[in-house]
């Protein structure tokens, strides 16, 4: 009976699509494929504290052209907390004048490799819709089943094709309290309804005309896509309300339950090691530094995402023996050793800058994706992230700046504290150059020094450097011309414990100057930082992400050859803005034998908002223009 009903339903659907195809093509003239409808319904049931959660999804795509047949290759992602069941997928199309329906028969389970993650429990069911061509419609339905009430599926609405209409809903027994948080819904047409029966409540959102995911976001798309997160706040059991995820307190309580049994093996070796490391050190800060650098040096970061194990750090002793770990492992061994040293430190959960939410907005595991160690030192907290190899002591990792950290103080106590943004003065590159002209060749002696995140970035690049990469310095410093040869390179203070890294090198650039008549045109700026950072076209509609605040200083001294004199120096130039600015000055030395060129670039923000984008572009253009200025020298012998 069911199949007959399906058959008639299909006929009706096909007839209406044939009529609508032309209308859809004119409504979406630039699209090859369109999702006509998407429905996702969450059904939550509960019995004696055990949950059954089922998400039912149906989706209908129509192919407006035949230029993107690869879209017919689909997959359904899932992980070890979920199972995918009752998949039904088919295509309806017109072949040789006849309506045909072809069902997908093969669904393949595949493990998913995620860039940068060594092992992940992500899987997908992979399949291809048959018989797809222009005018075809594909239908997909399946059920996603899970039991753990902490991991409700998220409604994040956005794909590589537009969606005409979306219906999202959740039904739950009245003994269960369900809350929801919405983000970016103001950008779409949304209707929300609640309905309640004696036993159940349903929340339903209807969204119309969802555009495809824009390719021009600089931040993670999650900052922009319409999203609804549903969470189970509590359940009534035996007349009492049992909290699940009603607040950050509940989230912490659950996180804490996952870590309470870690490090149960004999940790004597680690304790002895810790005592050896801190022997003779008097201050807490010295002790923390010694242990922090030890972990950075000894333990290699390897990312694992393995089900619930993705939330539970491995045993500290084993991490030390294996010499590798993921973020929570590194946080754990660091925390454990600090504790052995008598330092007050705590495991700390945090979302990187890829997660835009606060714990108050979204007290669910969606809010964070990283673990670090917070150390109570000098009435303040230091946020130590041992996964960021080469990160200087006292600095948070760049990708957690400005984010809320959930610090686990005790079984019941936690704190949420915002990680500070590191000021540009702490992340500085200084390049001091002494330049000299020999005929048409520019000779240079340079000393570059790096602190903070600038040092971190440089050490990461140095680690990956190939011996054959002769243009390494030019590329990483954005300094010199392609024709510039660098040599006698000396890297100093590479050890993590040093605050400043320095690189001394010589350079030689043939045919550097331009001689016209008796004048010589010399460009004194060898660096080209930020040159390509103009934000253009569609990208201007979205905030620009900046990794860290920084300063770059270039202190250049140019020796004037005996047979030349300065005919003109460029005018001093500056661009003033509190978030991004630069200034360049030119002067003669007191003995008139050298030209002194100073340049200071400051970027004092972690993002450029859309309303400041024109200012940013003006800043970059002005900087690029300033970098091209020439000193004119006159040949005194002519």
């Amino acid at each position, binding site marked *: 009976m069911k199949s007959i009903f399906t058959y008639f339903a299909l006929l009706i659907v096909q007839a209406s699509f044939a009529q609508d195809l032309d209308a859809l093509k004119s409504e979406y003239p630039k699209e090859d494929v369109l999702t006509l409808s998407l429905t996702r319904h969450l059904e939550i049931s509960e019995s004696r504290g055990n949950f059954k959660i089922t998400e039912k999804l149906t989706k209908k795509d129509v192919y407006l052209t*035949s230029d993107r047949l690869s879209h017919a290759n689909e997959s359904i992602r899932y992980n070890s907390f979920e199972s995918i069941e009752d998949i039904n997928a088919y295509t309806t199309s017109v072949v040789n004048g006849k309506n045909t329906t072809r069902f997908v028969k093969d669904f393949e389970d595949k493990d998913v490799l995620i860039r940068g993650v060594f092992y992940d429990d992500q899987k997908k069911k992979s399949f291809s819709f048959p018989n797809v061509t222009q005018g075809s419609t594909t239908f997909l339905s399946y059920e996603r089943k899970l039991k753990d009430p902490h991991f409700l599926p998220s409604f994040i609405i956005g794909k590589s094709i537009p969606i005409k209409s979306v219906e999202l809903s959740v039904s739950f027994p009245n003994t269960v309290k369900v809350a929801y948080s919405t983000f970016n819904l103001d950008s779409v047409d949304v209707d929300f309804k609640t309905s309640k029966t004696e036993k159940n409540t349903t929340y339903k959102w209807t969204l119309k005309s969802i555009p495809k995911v824009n390719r021009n976001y600089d931040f993670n798309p999650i900052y922009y896509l319409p999203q609804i997160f549903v969470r189970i706040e509590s359940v009534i059991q035996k007349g009492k309300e049992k909290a699940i995820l009603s607040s950050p307190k509940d989230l912490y309580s659950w996180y804490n339950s996952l870590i309470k049994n870690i490090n149960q093996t004999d940790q004597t070796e680690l304790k002895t090691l810790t005592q050896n490391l801190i022997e003779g050190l008097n201050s807490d800060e010295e002790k923390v530094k010694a242990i922090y650098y030890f972990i950075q040096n000894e333990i290699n970061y390897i990312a694992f995402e393995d089900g619930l194990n993705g939330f539970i750090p491995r045993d500290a002793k084993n991490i030390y023996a294996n010499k590798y770990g993921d973020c929570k492992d590194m946080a754990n061994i660091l925390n454990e050793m600090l504790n052995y040293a008598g330092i007050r430190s705590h495991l700390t959960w945090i979302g990187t800058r890829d997660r835009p939410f606060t714990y108050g907005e979204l007290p669910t595991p969606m809010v964070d994706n990283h673990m670090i160690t917070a150390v109570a030192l000098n009435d303040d907290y230091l946020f130590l992230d041992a996964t960021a190899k080469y990160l200087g002591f006292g600095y948070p990792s760049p990708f957690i700046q400005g984010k809320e950290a959930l610090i686990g103080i005790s079984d019941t106590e936690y704190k949420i504290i915002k990680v500070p943004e590191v000021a540009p003065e702490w992340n500085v590159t200084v390049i001091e150059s002494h330049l000299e002209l020999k005929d048409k060749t520019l000779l240079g002696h340079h000393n570059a020094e790096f602190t903070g995140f600038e040092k971190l970035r440089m050490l990461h690049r140095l*680690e990956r450097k190939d011996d054959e990469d002769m243009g390494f310095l030019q590329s990483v410093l954005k300094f010199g011309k392609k024709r510039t040869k660098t040599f006698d390179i000396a890297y100093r203070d590479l050890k993590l414990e040093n605050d400043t890294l320095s690189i001394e090198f010589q350079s030689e650039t043939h045919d550097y100057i331009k001689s016209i008549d008796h004048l010589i045109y010399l460009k004194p700026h060898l660096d080209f930082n930020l040159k390509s950072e103009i934000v253009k076209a569609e990208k201007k509609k979205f905030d620009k992400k900046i990794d860290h605040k920084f300063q770059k200083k270039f202190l250049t001294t140019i020796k004037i050859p005996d047979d030349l004199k300065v005919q003109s120096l460029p005018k001093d130039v500056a661009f003033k803005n509190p978030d991004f600015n630069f200034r360049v000055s030119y002067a003669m030395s007191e003995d008139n034998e050298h030209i002194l060129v100073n340049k200071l670039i400051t970027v004092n923000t972690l993002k450029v908002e859309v309303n400041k984008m024109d200012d940013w572009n003006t800043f970059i253009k002005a900087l690029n223009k300033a970098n091209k200025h020439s000193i*004119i020298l006159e040949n005194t012998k002519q």
Partner: protein
Amino acid sequence: MKYFLKTLLILLVSYSASAQLYKKHDWKESQEFYELTETEKQLPSIAIKEKYLIQYYQPAIAISAAFRLFETKHSIIRVNTDKGIKTHNRVYIPMYNVKKVIDIKARVTQRDGKVKVLNKRNIKELENVENYGNFKIFAIEGVTKDSQLEFIYTLEKYIRSIGSVVVQKDYEVKEAEVILRKPRVLSYRVKEYNGFPKMVTKTVEGNKEALTTTATNIDAMTDEMSASPTANRMKMFYQVAAGGFGSTSEMWDGLETNLIDNYIKIKPKKYNSLIKDYTAFVKEKPAETQAQIINNICEYVTSNFNIIRKRDEQLSEMKYIVRTKQASESGIIKVYSCLFNHEDIDYEFVLTSDRFKHKFDRLFYSSSNLQISLFYFIEEKKYIEPDNVNTRLNFAPPEAIGNDAIFVNKGGRRFRIIESPKASNNTIERDYTISIDIDEVITKVACEQKNTGYRAKNARGAYKYLKNRDFDNFKQFTGANGIEDAEFETFEVNDEALSLGTDNIPVRMNYSYTTESLIEEINEDIMLNFGKVIGTQNELYQEAKRVNPVELNSLIRYTYKIEIIIPDGYEAKGLDAIKISKVVDIDGQPACQFISDYTLDNNILTIKVIESYDSLEMPLQYYEGYKDVVNSAYDFSKLSILLKQKV
């Protein structure tokens, strides 16, 4: 493309038994900590030894299908730096063709003699990873700087008759030993490439004879521009067969028969619904020439069939393909053959290698020879690429040109080199007009651009993909690459149809933009960096000692005409640098050149440039000349003239 390999069969009979070689091979109980030279200590890592044991084995009590194949890999690697740790501390063992994992073990030895052995429970499995299949993976435990890691794994594989070992890696290898052993009943044949030492018969562990060799001090392969470092790696290929070998020619015979029977003799009458559907699709399309018909077929297939890149037998079965409009890369070949046969088109099916990975070797049959499939049309002297979703009758793809290949039709086979289009057929031609607004300190650039050959094919493909998705990006990389502040005023694309590539009709792109970045004010004068308009250029200034000979992607010619309108009241200075002439001749023939010159006529400065690469391969001794030509193009892009205010 391994499905073409149904030609070598092992005769499954049994004779005398021999021991499994891998059982005799193990790591030393007490691991030696190898000392490195000062030079070696500077490397991120170095392999002390890498050993490859390949054994075709026959048990004592033989039954049908009794041959077994075991492969063992044993590596001892010293790790010196964090980069070295990251390169080696994660191991992925592909499970493709693996019947059984016999053993996997690993350990790390420290300088002080401490040893950490891998906990086998930490070995994880990845199943059916997209395009890669299954893996066993593990992180090596206990690796630190200045430590020595070692791993051995032995896999029993499904029996196969051909294989290869590549011993040159991205890191230096002090010693690589390869042992290939088989029972007497089997024969083998090997071929060494790129300096791999000759394999000789020796007595090996277990006191048995085997074919073996040891290569020492193998340099790390360098990734170089305009080269084929992968194809140039030191390696050996082997074949194993029972009952004596047929000649190489007989092996190609087998392939030829397979191709004719399974991929060429596809009878259209058996697939009426396909023919009917195709006929309806092309009904309104021009079909006066064979080229038009071939392109109609291409258009029909690419807009009606979804190519699914996975191993699945049914995706290469015509009935299934016709019913579902889904095909694998081999299945889609049959669809094309069927339609060509229906239209009575004369064609040859072509198989060759990707020349950047392995040079086709007609003298040694291997799977690496058979990675690219094409159709060749003798009358048109053009190809189609059946697994390319934009394919039309055109030149062979760049990775196949200049390479030997096997061409098969119903009548048999021939070997021939796939010809490369001449540079004159693969061009970018740009006519620029640059005018300067002195008051606004802005430059206006107008350009008429024509692309032919591969450059037309790429532009058409990119335009088709990006026109509705990211046209700004298309405009930027086509017309103003490297000019960050370019603001386009106009941008037109004409003759963008994919089928126009057949007659090499240029795709035309006319555009104009304004930019401030070409100009620098120097007091009352202006420095104009006109060279920048030709876009970001490759350069080879900061190169380590060249290892690989030059091998280009394609022959190509760029011609530029740049007209600069000198503003009233100004004169152009510093023109001498525009005159550049770098030419490399090999055996009296031009191999590559960069020539630029100018004329000044009243207020119009006209600069003409020709840059061309006319030889696909250049021996190492010509590298410096080639580098000069490439760098000249870069230097040109940096050229400026001074527009000096007349006094």
